[in-house]
């Protein structure tokens, strides 16, 4: 490990972390802007040109707000919960490839991969971290000493673990085709054909489970405001609330990047046509942006599910379907050989 290696690594860590933070900040603005335009409103447009400075204003506002810690909360866990959520959501970004190895126009002596690290167990690393995200929510609900928080936290954790199964099993089909858990290898394998064409059922299960995993509409029951006030973060204010808010968007960003990486060829260009002269990183960014937009679009298109419907859907429809997908992929691969 040379000095240059350390330098490159540190720069990569800094740039990618900063980029995720920036995307999260501007996702909060995009959410309000897109929501506004879907409802024929303008959305925030007072702070800076087109409201572009709104996220900064919001961040500062939240920072200067009083932090109300209610009586009888478990102070340590109460403080820990938002931190766990944030770390779990942000750290997953370490293994997603943003582009092919590049030497930055000859700036570096040899090409470096455009990701923090290509680990052999890339997909499992992300799943392991996202399974930690459950703790943030369940502990927030439990430590707050509030009935709404507890119910919201419980509901949310039961929802997340149910859909984590479908999410985890839906990607097995992709792994069977790529023969590797490394996300870099998965992307390289899709140079010819994106996996979404070979794994349509797996992709549908993945993307629906992704909505449930990130607690977004139509599955945003943990914070179903007519029933539960604000769910698990009812008692949170100031920067702690802000961390929950950021981790929700970071989780959305991560799951979109995973959908792109696993099913839509990551940084690869169109199948058969190549990159059309557009840098691979932009292909990646564009595809992720589409999925992020999908999250916002669906929010204003579909109504919320009832909780029993949600659980039935997870356990009685998606779990068997994801096993069926494994079966079909297995049969297909055996027959084609």
């Amino acid at each position, binding site marked *: 490990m040379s000095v240059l290696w350390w330098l490159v690594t540190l720069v990569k860590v800094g740039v990618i972390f900063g980029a995720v933070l920036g995307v999260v900040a501007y996702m909060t603005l995009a959410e309000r802007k897109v929501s506004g335009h879907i409802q024929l409103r303008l959305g925030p447009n007072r702070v800076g040109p087109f409201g572009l400075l709104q996220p900064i204003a919001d961040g500062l506002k939240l920072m200067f707000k009083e932090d109300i810690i209610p009586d009888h909360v*478990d102070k*340590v*866990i109460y403080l*820990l919960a938002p931190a766990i959520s944030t770390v779990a959501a942000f750290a997953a970004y370490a293994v997603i490839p943003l582009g092919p190895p590049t030497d930055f126009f000859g700036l570096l002596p040899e090409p470096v991969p455009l990701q923090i690290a290509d*680990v*052999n*167990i890339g997909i*499992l*690393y992300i*799943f*392991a*971290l996202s*399974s*930690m995200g*459950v*703790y943030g929510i*369940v*502990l927030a609900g*439990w430590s707050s000493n509030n009935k709404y928080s*507890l119910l919201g936290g*419980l509901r949310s*954790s039961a929802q997340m*673990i149910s859909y984590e199964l479908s999410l985890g099993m839906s990607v097995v089909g992709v792994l069977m085709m790529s023969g*590797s*858990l*490394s996300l870099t*290898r998965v992307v390289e394998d899709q140079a010819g054909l994106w996996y979404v064409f070979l794994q349509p059922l797996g992709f549908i299960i993945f993307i629906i489970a992704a909505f449930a995993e990130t607690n977004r509409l139509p599955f945003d029951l943990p914070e179903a405001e007519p029933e539960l006030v604000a769910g698990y973060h009812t008692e949170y204010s100031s920067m702690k609330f802000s961390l929950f808010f950021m981790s929700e968007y970071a989780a959305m960003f991560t799951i979109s990047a995973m959908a792109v990486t696993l099913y839509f060829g990551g940084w690869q260009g169109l199948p058969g046509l190549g990159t059309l002269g557009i840098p691979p990183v932009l292909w990646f960014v564009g595809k992720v942006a589409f999925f992020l937009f999908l999250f916002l679009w669906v929010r204003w298109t579909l109504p919320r599910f009832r909780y029993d419907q949600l659980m039935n859907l997870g356990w009685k429809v998606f779990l068997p379907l994801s096993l069926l997908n494994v079966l079909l992929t297995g049969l297909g691969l055996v027959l084609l050989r």
Partner: protein
Amino acid sequence: MEQFFFFLFAAGAVISALLVISRRNVMHCALFLVLTFFFVAAIFVLLKAEFLAAVQVLVYAGAIMVLFTFVIFLVHIPRTEKIRQTFRQKNLALALGLLLGLEVAYILYGTMAAPASLPAAAPVGAVGNTESFGVALFTRFLFPFEVVSVLLLAAMIGAIVLAKKEIDR
């Protein structure tokens, strides 16, 4: 540097394991247990057993401990903190602990005496240790693997039978 990381993670694992058994608030105990699993996973990474590290976090920290926290929801924490703790199984615990210590010492002695006879480390490369784990599991240890499914089946039926009365209510 490798030694530094090993001792860092090992110390972390031991300290958080001690906190698991010494804290009075059960929820804190459970969280320290999660932390212990994390440090153990980090040690697995140092040993190049990445797949085991991932499964350690995914299954132990991410699934089993979530079940634990659900169960702890039943416990009234302030009340449990006031209960005077008794230690009636002291002798039994001591005997079992001694037995376990001897077993570990025996294995350690065996490996120290003949380090060369150990199986070679998992092959390094793009596939890494997931593949070597899989090869062993699906060829040599196929029967135990299939038996695991029977074990899981028994656990599933057992859980449902126990909860049946409550479900029907």
